[in-house]
């Protein structure tokens, strides 16, 4: 089967087969990243615009490398955090960019739903590189690829996601993707960071204690705490957060022996992750980054109408 979507906005919109197709393609394309000459002509002549309204070195670079390895022309636009502050509406920005005839717009935006808004107004493909607290599908896919490589499957895996669920687009994409693929998701975090009705997002269990979530887990996914944002009312202190919701070797020992530790980065060392855990053998954090390029190549490839890669 082919990939029938013009855009990739949310993993919520994708079927099991579509997610599998993207992961299979990423697996195949990852071989290119191991070559001496890391470039194939697949998307030659295609133009990809990386439109980033929020600072992000990691994701933007990953998308840029992915585009270039497929021989697409990638252009980066770093806009101010809010289109309103800049004085130009997103709709006008989109019209201007569209006038330059891109094939794909990869956008990051601080407002949830900005991509849905954009996709309705442009004829080219839109890929969501993160919108507000809504979704971050490329992160969800690279996380799932990393798990699948390690365990050979996603169905039946026990995945613990720990931290600020309310503000996390990474959590939402993982919840949708993983539950679609048949994994079990356990959430833990301070009650101030657990959004209402979250268990209804998929087959999700909310745990009172992070130990419950981590117990016998195959994957422990720690979320980034945004020091600048949560300091005021959501948490008493980073110290207390670290004590109750940080991953240290003692808590990690509750997980399965071959469990892996994941984090979308950048890490606050000593807050959500003890340094010894971040750098331990079980840490898959750098593998996630590596897989990011392959997953983004697969996404770019399929929204351009690519056939399944044999």
């Amino acid at each position, binding site marked *: 089967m082919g990939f029938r979507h013009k855009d990739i906005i949310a993993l919520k919109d994708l079927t099991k087969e579509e997610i599998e197709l993207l992961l299979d393609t990423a697996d195949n394309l990852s071989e290119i990243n191991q070559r001496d000459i890391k470039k194939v002509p697949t998307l030659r002549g295609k133009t990809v615009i990386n439109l980033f309204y929020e600072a992000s070195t990691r994701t933007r670079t990953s998308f840029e490398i992915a585009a270039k390895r497929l021989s697409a022309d990638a252009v980066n636009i770093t806009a101010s955090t*809010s*289109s*309103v502050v800049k004085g130009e*509406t*997103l*709709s006008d920005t989109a019209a201007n960019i569209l006038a330059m005839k891109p094939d794909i717009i990869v956008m990051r*935006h601080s*407002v*949830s*739903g*900005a991509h*849905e*808004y954009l996709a309705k107004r442009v004829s080219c493909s839109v890929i969501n590189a993160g*919108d*507000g*607290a*809504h*979704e971050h599908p490329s992160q969800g896919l690279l996380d799932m690829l990393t798990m699948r490589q390690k365990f050979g499957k996603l169905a039946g895996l026990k995945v613990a996601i720990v931290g600020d669920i*309310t503000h996390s*687009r990474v959590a*939402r994409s993982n919840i949708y993707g993983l539950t679609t693929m048949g994994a079990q998701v356990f959430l833990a975090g301070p009650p101030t960071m657990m*959004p*209402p*009705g*979250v268990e*209804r*997002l998929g087959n999700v269990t909310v745990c009172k204690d992070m130990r419950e979530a981590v117990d016998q887990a195959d994957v422990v996914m720690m979320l980034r705490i945004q020091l600048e944002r949560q300091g005021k009312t959501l948490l008493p202190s980073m110290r207390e957060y670290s004590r109750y919701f940080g991953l240290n070797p003692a808590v990690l020992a509750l997980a399965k022996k071959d469990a892996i530790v994941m984090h979308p980065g950048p890490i606050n060392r000593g807050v959500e992750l003890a340094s010894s855990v971040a750098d331990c053998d079980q840490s898959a954090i750098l593998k996630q980054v590596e897989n990011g390029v392959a997953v983004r190549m697969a996404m770019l490839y399929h929204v351009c109408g690519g056939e399944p890669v044999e």
Partner: protein
Amino acid sequence: MNLLIKGGRVIDPSQGIDETMDVLIADGVVLELGQGIAAPEGTQTIDASGLLVTPGLIDMHVHLRDPGLEYKEDIATGSRSAAAGGFTSVACMPNTSPVIDNKAVASYVVNKAKSEALVNVFPIGSITKGSKGDSLAEMGDLKEAGCVAVSDDGKPVCNSELMRRALEYAKGIGITVISHSEDLALVGEGVMNEGFVATELGLKGIPWAAENIAVAREVYLAEFAAAPVHIAHISTAGSARIIRNAKARGVKVTCETAPHYFTLTDDAVRGYNTNAKMNPPLRGESDVAAMKAGLADGTIDAIATDHAPHHPDEKDVEFNVALNGIVGLETSLSLSLKLVEEGVLDLKGLVSVMSCNPAKILGVDRGTLRVGAVGDVTVIDPAKEWQVEAAKLESKSKNSPFLGWKMKGKAVYTVVKGQVVYQA
């Protein structure tokens, strides 16, 4: 010219009337009600057989955006929208530019309405100067200039001491205080109702507690000051419960809700629909049920639209930055008539919440077809089917979540001081 409305089902709760009869209006006032009234020569006649004839509907909470924001709406277009919706009177909020916080601005509205408006326009002044919540506006002057109430619409008076004094002072001069009840700290950066839909969409939520807490404060202040207070646009089950309890122990509190709060839930926000973005936000199923129960048992005194016109550029943007509010004057009656179909209200009850009660709360001489009263009448065809189309709305703005909806029931004649100002 005289006007005879013949053979309609006249529903006037102020006189306990629900029967088929004629209404004769002469020189702008109701001259006679009864069977088989003979029309004097030169009388315009409306055949109202099969139609409802009610005291002119009153929307006690609209935004006419004039002065200052006429690109959204002005007194002329807003009044046309009101007339098309069956409203003979509207009370307009003071969050104009400049704010209606002094006699000069109030007089501007009154005078412009005299020359341009199809319907009665009653301005509402602000409670505090500039609606800034720092010091009381000159309420005596505002009343003298024609204001029928005071409100810092869109904003709560955060300072409880100032609100207490506002209630006491307003009581002394006999002007209604309307509270926009919201705890701003709890609202924070919220843009929709806090709940599952917000979780799914990744949008910041506004908890129901933000409204309930503020409503509870107003109730206690009104009780303490022994002064009346009117709560604008309630949307939560908790607000209705608090007000019901307060009324039961004799607190002089009245309230209104809007058609969208008894018609839609926060599901309408899905797809990041900015035409479903409003403040207070659309709530959940149980709140919608509570609005209906509150109307049914008299806890909720009035249906008001909170008609809030916005330019397309202010709505065709990302959800977070879209302005709050929807237009409502032309869809209110149809959505409210559905309550009659559902058995929530009978027709008398409907006319009470859309005409008699708003008149009483604002202290205006309207909301009745008593002989000698001003001849403001709405003639309604309860069976008329129509579809909401942006191009056909009289309002300058088209920001409605009901576009495309099929409606049943519509005003077919709107009569102000004996003059037909709208005919479907």
